[in-house]
């Protein structure tokens, strides 16, 4: 990691020395990560390395044990809960498994954030659903279906439509392409890049998929044993010169990362 340059702008999101343990299992053990405005950060790391936990800490869904999380320069862990909520309401999140509301039809899922913020009425929301669904490649008729009636890939796309509907300032993606066929994966990546560019948002994505990482990210970081072990440009992932990243990105069995038995 290079030392900070003097006249750097404040990062959109700054995580420093973040720690979180579940019981005696340290999941995050001093994570430091800066994400600059308008960039896309891709975080890679083995299964169970705490990537989702990191995202949930920033979103305020899990309370970390110690550390600092600053969004737009505001320390959200120490700010008043109203202030922290206001800041976090400008984060759109695509959950690892979609997390669509299964009691609501697709159109209501997609418009949920806008309805909650009173930006549109229910009547308009239904009519406007195609506006959100078409960009993610779903027909307007899908709006009337329920999440259980969709395939996994369609659910991911509805989740994406829901995450970007309120035009958030920051976008988080937890494994947006896992479980999709390669073409659909590329399509979703394209959508993410489009969304981020058209909204001018800052993005933080988690992925296991190197092709996807290269497509989405401008920057990349690797999480290993609770720490960020490497950070650099996303196109450097495949030739980072870091043993851990190298082994991970090339999927080699031999190397410094040994398969651990997860407790």
């Amino acid at each position: 990691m290079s030392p900070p340059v003097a006249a750097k702008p404040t990062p959109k999101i700054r995580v420093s020395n973040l720690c979180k343990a579940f019981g005696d299992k340290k999941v995050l053990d001093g994570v430091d990560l800066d994400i600059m405005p308008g960039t896309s950060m891709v975080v890679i790391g083995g299964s169970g390395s705490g990537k989702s936990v990191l995202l949930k800490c920033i979103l305020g869904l899990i309370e970390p044990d110690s550390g600092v999380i600053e969004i737009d320069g505001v320390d959200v862990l120490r700010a008043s809960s109203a202030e922290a909520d206001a800041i976090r309401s400008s984060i759109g999140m695509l959950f690892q498994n979609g997390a669509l509301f299964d009691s609501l039809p697709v159109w209501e899922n997609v418009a949920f954030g806008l309805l909650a913020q009173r930006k549109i009425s229910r009547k308009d929301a239904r009519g406007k659903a195609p506006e959100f669904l078409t960009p993610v490649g779903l027909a307007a008729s899908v709006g009337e279906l329920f999440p259980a009636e969709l395939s996994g890939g369609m659910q991911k796309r509805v989740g994406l439509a829901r995450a970007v509907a309120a035009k958030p300032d920051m976008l988080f993606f937890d494994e947006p392409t896992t479980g999709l066929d390669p073409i659909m994966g590329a399509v979703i990546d394209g959508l993410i890049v489009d969304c981020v560019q058209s909204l001018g948002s800052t993005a933080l994505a988690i992925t296991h998929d190197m092709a996807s990482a290269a497509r989405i990210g401008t920057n990349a970081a690797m999480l290993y044993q609770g720490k960020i072990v490497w950070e650099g440009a996303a196109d450097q992932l495949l030739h980072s010169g870091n043993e851990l990243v190298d082994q991970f990105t090339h999927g080699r069995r031999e190397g410094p990362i040994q398969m651990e038995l997860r407790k």
Partner: protein
Amino acid sequence: MLDVLLTPVALLGRATLSVCRSTGQLTLFLIEGLSHLLRPPFYVRLFWQSFVEFAYFSLPVVALTAVFTGMVLALQASTGLSRFNAESAIANLVVLSMTRELGPVLTAVMVAGRVGAAMAAQIGTMRVTDQIDALTTLSTNPMKYLVTPRLLAGAIAVPLLVVVADILGVFGGYLVAILKLGFSSQVYLKNTYDFMTRLDVVSGLVKAVVFGVLISLLGCYNGYRSKGGAEGVGAATTSAVVASCVLIFFFDYILTEAFFTR
């Protein structure tokens, strides 16, 4: 040797601690849920949905339970009271037991099995599939969205169901008294009417409000805190029903004590 003696003590201690902890957590959960009643936004549609789920869809079970209970009461009373030549007290006994005790308690237990279980399963599933987290990221307070409407629906719907159960229970007793025990319809109804007191009915309805809140509270609380996939949701459902039934009987005693012993 000492171990054998101390193990039960340790178990008892641990059980006491865990009861205290759960009581505290439940109370905090309830206070948070109720605190949203007064702060907008209000989810009227969600309240209405869960009210319908509580009241309308529980009507058949509650109605059947109440009718049969009233019938059984009349029949048992006739066999018991005939020993003292006091059959005329049948109407009295039916209306008193239904309004004070059986109407509220049986309704609440049936509703706990039906609605409380469904509530825990639904909220539990939302928890383990990250839907509750998703609510938060979409500018919605999950307590306000999921818990508050259900608490209110329980507090309003269960008393209404109890009114129905009281009426149908008395009707069940009336059927048996007229058709089987040879009472005259007028006398039975007059006895019922004369013996019915306002305190009996009101105390029953107050119980119903408390039971309604308990059912929603335990359904939501267990669902909200469930973890670990389908198994966790199953466990949450079971404990919602078991705990609400136990607490219904517990509060039934407390409230009876409060109303009728002076």
